[in-house]
């Protein structure tokens, strides 16, 4: 068996074992799951919301994961389940603060500060900064589609819009970000 395949298998086995142990109330196993997945979850949250909310929402994701572990049936990878849970928590947060819909459906909203071509390399934003500067709707569609790999139909369901809006927001985001490709 190739080494990488075996290591991947062992890692997957270890995560599966830890998810089963955590579901039974083993906090140590759950901490191992946290250590394995926190970077991915935190990065997703940071990109989808404002950076200053990322820590709080990431904590919320893991606390909810702990509470909901009994619903994890092992039919998908634990990481996939956790990731989807993180997306749901982010979207719930978005609704709870009541900012999403007005911003999201306004396709004419100017892309704040990210559309102009940088004058010098010193003044240019890097790609992550430019992504963070996108309007919320465009940013979330871009993250879900181009970074996380969701389809427009899924994104539309999650965000409560039609797929055409998701496509339009994605295009706006890409058009803005093309000016901030790393040089």
């Amino acid at each position, binding site marked *: 068996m190739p080494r990488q395949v075996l290591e991947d298998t062992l890692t997957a086995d270890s995560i599966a*074992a830890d998810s089963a142990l955590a579901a039974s*109330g083993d906090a140590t196993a759950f901490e191992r799951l946290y250590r394995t997945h926190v970077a991915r979850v*935190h990065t997703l949250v940071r990109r989808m919301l404002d950076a200053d909310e990322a820590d709080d929402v990431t904590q919320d994701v893991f606390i909810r994961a702990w509470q909901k572990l009994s619903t994890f049936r092992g039919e998908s990878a634990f990481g996939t389940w956790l990731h989807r849970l993180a997306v749901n928590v982010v979207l719930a947060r978005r609704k709870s603060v009541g900012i999403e819909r007005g911003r999201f459906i306004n396709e004419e909203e100017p892309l704040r500060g990210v559309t102009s071509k940088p004058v010098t390399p010193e003044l240019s934003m890097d790609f992550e900064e430019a992504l963070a500067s996108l309007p919320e709707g465009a940013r979330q569609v871009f993250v879900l589609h181009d970074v996380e790999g969701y389809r427009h139909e899924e994104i539309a369901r999650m965000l409560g819009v039609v797929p055409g809006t998701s496509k339009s927001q994605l295009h706006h985001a890409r058009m803005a970000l093309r000016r901030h490709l790393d040089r």
Partner: protein
Amino acid sequence: MNDQWTNRLSEYIDGELDSTERASLEAHLATCGQCFATLGELRQVVLRAKSLDDAPPATDLWIEIAREIRREHAPARRDRLVRRRFSLTVGQLMAASIALVLLSGGGAWLALQSRQSTEPTPVGESTQRPRVGQLVTWTGHTDAAIADLQTALTQNERRLDTATVRIVRMNLAIIDRAIADARIALQKDPGNAYLNLHLANTMRRKVELLRRVNDMAAARS
């Protein structure tokens, strides 16, 4: 730049145009350098998005999470876990199912113990149960095989990287816990077929894991 086509470039990249639209856009691209250049930039954006790195939080969030989850109670979860259906791969059985053995074995044993104390033994059952002597024989053979494989692993371990060794040790620790628990339970009820089956499966998985790791180490020598 032709806005009519520029606004369709992302759909073109994502393969969402029908054949007629695609042909029309490609005809436009052949004559419009600006759209062609924009298309190239958009493709770079898509590639860049796929190469973004994850970064952990600046501070450790576990302390707060741990504080919160300490308030949670496990018993209800444990009850549901017994009914849960896991769809684990064969490979995952080496660790994941062992964890379930840990969880379900003791509970099932207690349940069987309890049932035995209240239910009459069916006629003929006692003759179908493994005897203590049989248990000693098969576990003895397997113990010897495991001892040999573990000796080999001790010698081969240095050929593996640290991360692999750590994962292997973690999995072995889980399996050893399951074996130890099953042995303790069997001391109290040597003829329990359920526990014998679990012990056999657990030891078999340990042998399989040790063999696989030794094979991997040998392949790297």
